[in-house]
């Protein structure tokens, strides 16, 4: 058995010796280098884009602008992961600082860079809108003139009678919590190489979503989808930044115009204007009885989606549906409004949408517990849903383990033991719990092939981005068929070879692609047993496959290797397909229905020490727990559970993209630091909860991330009595709050 074993990454050696083929290191013969001219204005009409001087520079091969997308041209301007609202390059107006206006392809990157300054652009500035509330007013300037509204996506949840719920309550609490924009920061930037001719296109791209990319590129190039091939080498990190479609349409269109392959790799500064975490304001009103029973929750969320939809609709939905938390809330009302704003597009960010709402509801849980004089752990346990309970969407929450998770982290942090404070160093502990949906409905397909060498080939389109998907899928495939791990080969995603998968996101690959592989394995095994039965004249039900060896159950040890079986039967290979489809969906008016095939469940507990003279928060100890149903690889699970914490420390404590009139002010590692190893808590640990009879693994890529910020904020509160509502929890904010509290007393 390989499942359940802590085997090393199957690509560990390539990662260490540097031979792993990231897209950033890839070169295609004859390729040109692209650079992008970007808008300096957050909102302006384009009066003139004159590229003639740039085109005549030696070494410049092609310049792509909006003019190339005239109605009769061979390319289409608009695409978009969700709404089809995004132009390949700006044509009539620009909608954010950093929006591509022109792409130059040249023999060298330096030539392309220099040529940018030879493009003449005239702008007529329009009034920009940056704030999602302002964007949601009648007289706001419109980001997209043709829509008559700045609402990009609006999710509603209506359950019970929320006003009656507040009437039943003894106390009603209302608070507002803010999360700013943040950067996903994969160490490998976005990079795409495109080779395009009149009838077909091949792209190598650092994307988490090969099939959605294929769809968009086909649309832009006016080609049938089967003429577009997307090849995805392993990614140097994704974190959502590479979900759905990013550079690919722009690079493909430039390559078509140039008649030669074109490569574009973004600079760090360009990453900041390509995708960000959604800034969000969450206003949460909660009714509670004197004994601590929740009666109602009403939540308003305003997301700033930036200029284009990208993955904003699933953000509005995913954050909206979970905004009341994993609690028993008889009466719930959620308005989740995602607005177009004149900022770079916001998109998927690890812990998608849930980071922002958990920050709100878990911070407020502690505020209420304090006001009621209840222990925060007891208060949560009193309200957390149990296995099989009905939830605010009306769905039954089977397989719910929130109480176990919160007890686990409380136990591991020593919740019942008071923290010791000394002088100006105040210590405290904080808890938080998280629930997160996975995209539902969704589809993953996988194919398996064994050949006459006995090799088992796994064809799936889940993208390896450092999360170890190749390793866990290898383990699952090896066991499902019955071959040694060494005989398994995973094929990198390539839409001409590997079958459909919706996306590598939403913590879904182990579950979805793994499930599709298991279904394919059932079919492949049946074929093998059938073949073996013909050769050996045993009944198929008497034959088993163990460790790549096919034998009769009655005479173990005597039999054939899979390769030998194929050779004897004169077969070159056997092939099988499998699919995993999930079902569900929500009513658009009420948000009632089935939100998620299963739920991602996590919890966290922090112990902090606050320097009350400087406001600096040190994380002494952190324990994370997630429910994973079944562990495929304990090492990978631990890396995800703890990696989430390290990743979450940045937005919790200091990461924040600062805009000045729509322009990003801090767009490199010097001005926008991310957590370093020295920022990792000295005591960082995690647990993975399993169900003994569970067959299918659940995802673990995000479960423990959203709790990091509220667990820390709650610990700061119990240490000092000050409450931070706006992320990040900087020393300056904490010191200001401490001073304000001192003045009150």
């Amino acid at each position, binding site marked *: 058995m390989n499942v359940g074993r802590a085997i090393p990454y199957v690509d560990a050696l390539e990662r260490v010796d540097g031979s792993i083929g990231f897209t950033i290191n890839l070169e295609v013969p004859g390729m040109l280098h692209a650079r992008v001219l970007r808008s300096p204005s957050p909102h302006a009409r384009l009066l003139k884009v004159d590229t003639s001087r740039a085109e005549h520079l030696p070494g410049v091969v092609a310049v792509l602008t909006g003019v190339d997308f005239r109605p009769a041209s061979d390319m289409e301007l608009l695409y978009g992961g969700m709404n089809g609202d995004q132009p390949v390059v700006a044509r009539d107006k620009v909608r954010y600082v950093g929006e591509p206006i022109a792409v130059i392809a040249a023999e060298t990157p330096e030539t392309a860079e220099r040529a940018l300054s030879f493009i003449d652009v005239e702008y007529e500035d329009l009034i920009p809108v940056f704030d999602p509330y302002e964007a949601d007013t009648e007289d706001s300037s419109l980001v997209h003139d043709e829509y008559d509204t700045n609402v990009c996506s609006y999710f509603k949840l209506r359950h019970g009678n929320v006003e009656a719920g507040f009437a039943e309550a003894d106390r009603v609490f209302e608070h507002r919590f803010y999360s700013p924009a943040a950067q996903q920061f994969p160490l490998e930037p976005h990079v795409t190489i495109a080779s395009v001719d009149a009838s077909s296109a091949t792209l190598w791209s650092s994307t988490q979503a090969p099939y959605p990319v294929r769809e968009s590129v086909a649309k832009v190039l006016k080609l049938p989808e089967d003429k577009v091939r997307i090849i995805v080498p392993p990614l140097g990190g994704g974190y959502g930044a590479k979900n759905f479609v990013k550079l690919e349409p722009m690079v493909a269109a430039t390559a078509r115009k140039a008649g030669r392959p074109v490569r574009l790799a973004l600079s760090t*500064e360009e990453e900041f204007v390509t995708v960000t975490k959604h800034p969000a304001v969450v206003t949460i009103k909660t009714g509670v009885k004197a004994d601590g029973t929740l009666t109602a929750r009403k939540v308003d969320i305003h997301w700033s989606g930036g200029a284009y939809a990208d993955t904003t609709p699933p953000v509005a939905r995913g954050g909206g549906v979970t905004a009341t938390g994993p609690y028993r809330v008889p009466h719930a009302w959620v308005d989740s409004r995602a607005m177009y704003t004149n900022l770079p597009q916001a998109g998927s960010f690890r812990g998608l949408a849930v980071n922002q709402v958990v920050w709100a509801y878990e911070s407020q849980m502690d505020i209420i517990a304090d006001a009621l004089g209840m222990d925060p752990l007891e208060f949560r346990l009193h309200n957390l849903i149990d296995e099989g309970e009905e939830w605010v969407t009306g769905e039954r929450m089977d397989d719910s383990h929130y109480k176990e998770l919160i007890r686990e982290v409380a136990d591991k942090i020593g919740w019942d033991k008071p923290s010791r404070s000394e002088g100006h160093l105040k210590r405290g502990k904080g808890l938080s719990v998280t629930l997160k949906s996975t995209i539902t409905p969704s589809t993953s397909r996988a194919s398996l092939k064994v050949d006459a060498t006995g090799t088992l080939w796994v064809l799936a389109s889940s993208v390896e981005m450092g999360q170890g998907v190749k390793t866990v899928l290898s383990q699952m495939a090896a066991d499902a068929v019955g071959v040694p791990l060494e005989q398994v080969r995973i094929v990198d995603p390539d839409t001409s070879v590997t079958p459909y998968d919706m996306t590598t996101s939403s913590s879904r690959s182990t579950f979805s692609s793994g499930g599709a592989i298991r279904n394919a394995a059932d079919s492949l095994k049946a074929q093998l047993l059938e073949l073996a039965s013909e050769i050996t004249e045993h009944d198929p039900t008497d034959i088993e496959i163990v460790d790549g060896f096919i034998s009769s159950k009655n005479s173990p040890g005597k039999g054939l290797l899979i390769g030998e079986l194929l050779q004897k039967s004169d077969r070159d290979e056997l092939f099988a397909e499998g699919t995993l489809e999930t079902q569900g969906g929500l009513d658009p008016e009420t948000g009632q229905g089935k939100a998620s095939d299963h739920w991602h469940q996590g919890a966290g507990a922090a112990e902090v020490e606050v320097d009350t003279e*400087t406001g600096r928060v040190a994380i002494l100890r952190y324990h994370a727990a997630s429910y994973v149903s079944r562990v495929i690889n304990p090492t990978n699970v631990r890396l995800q559970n703890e990696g989430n914490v390290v990743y979450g420390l940045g937005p919790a404590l200091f990461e924040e993209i*600062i805009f000045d009139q729509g322009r990003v002010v801090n767009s490199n590692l*010097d001005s926008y*630091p991310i957590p*370093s190893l020295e920022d990792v808590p000295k005591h960082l640990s995690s647990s993975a909860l399993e169900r003994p009879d569970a067959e299918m693994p659940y995802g673990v890529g995000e479960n423990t991330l959203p709790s990091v910020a509220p667990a820390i904020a709650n610990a700061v509160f119990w240490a000092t009595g000050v409450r931070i509502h706006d992320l990040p929890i*900087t*020393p*300056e904010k904490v*010191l200001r709050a401490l001073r304000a509290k001192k003045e009150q007393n």
Partner: protein
Amino acid sequence: MLAEHKDEAKVISGGTAIVPLMQEKLLAPSYLVALYKVPGLDYIRHEPGLGLRIGALTSLRDVETSPLVRQHAPVLSYTASLIASVRVRTAATVGGSLAEANYASDPYGVLIALNAMIKAVGTSGERTVRMGDFITGHYRTALQPDEIAVELLVPEVSPNVSATYIKYTTRSQKERPAAGVASLARLDDSGACEELKVVVTAATETPQVIVEAEQLALNKKPSLSLIREIALRYSQQIEPLEDHRASAWYRRQLIEVLVQRSAESVLRIKGE
């Protein structure tokens, strides 16, 4: 070359200062004068009675790990260990990091407290500049366009001196300081203060010393109230700047707390 091209030319050694500036298009020199192959500027020597002599092309990592620096100026070795990351320290040179004069840097305060000097060589010859006069503004030094720094001289530190440096970051531990305080004190046998130096860095464009506050400690036995008074004067008399690491208000609070902690450490607890 520097004399010929003046501001059109810039010096590069480790590249950790100038390359980011060029990437951000804050600098676009026509010529880069590379010093990496200039021989004889990568050394750390100790000359009894004179002090430590450190060549301008010595890496910060070498300063951090040098047994000579550890022995004769341990606070400098400690301060070097706090700068950026091992990778950056291995590439960055002493001369480059001094000549960069980025206000948000760690080593300037300690070097001023240690009375360090910089030897500069230009077309008109050689001269020595006191570290306290070297940094004249953000990205500005006393170096003339045709001069380069060739050596850092750290005078002998007497054995009854204690010195320390506090680096304070507001975001990642690995980033540049939002404020730094270097302190150095010498106490006589009776415990009275013979010398106190306190330098605040990274809070303003140039390192700050409030001499009148330092002198409060002279010939007195240090007390908590004395240290508080010194800290208060530093925070009142320095006009901090504001950037994305901290506001001016916050830096003022930090100066008071960090000066107090730093002075307490050198005046009451002998160490470093």
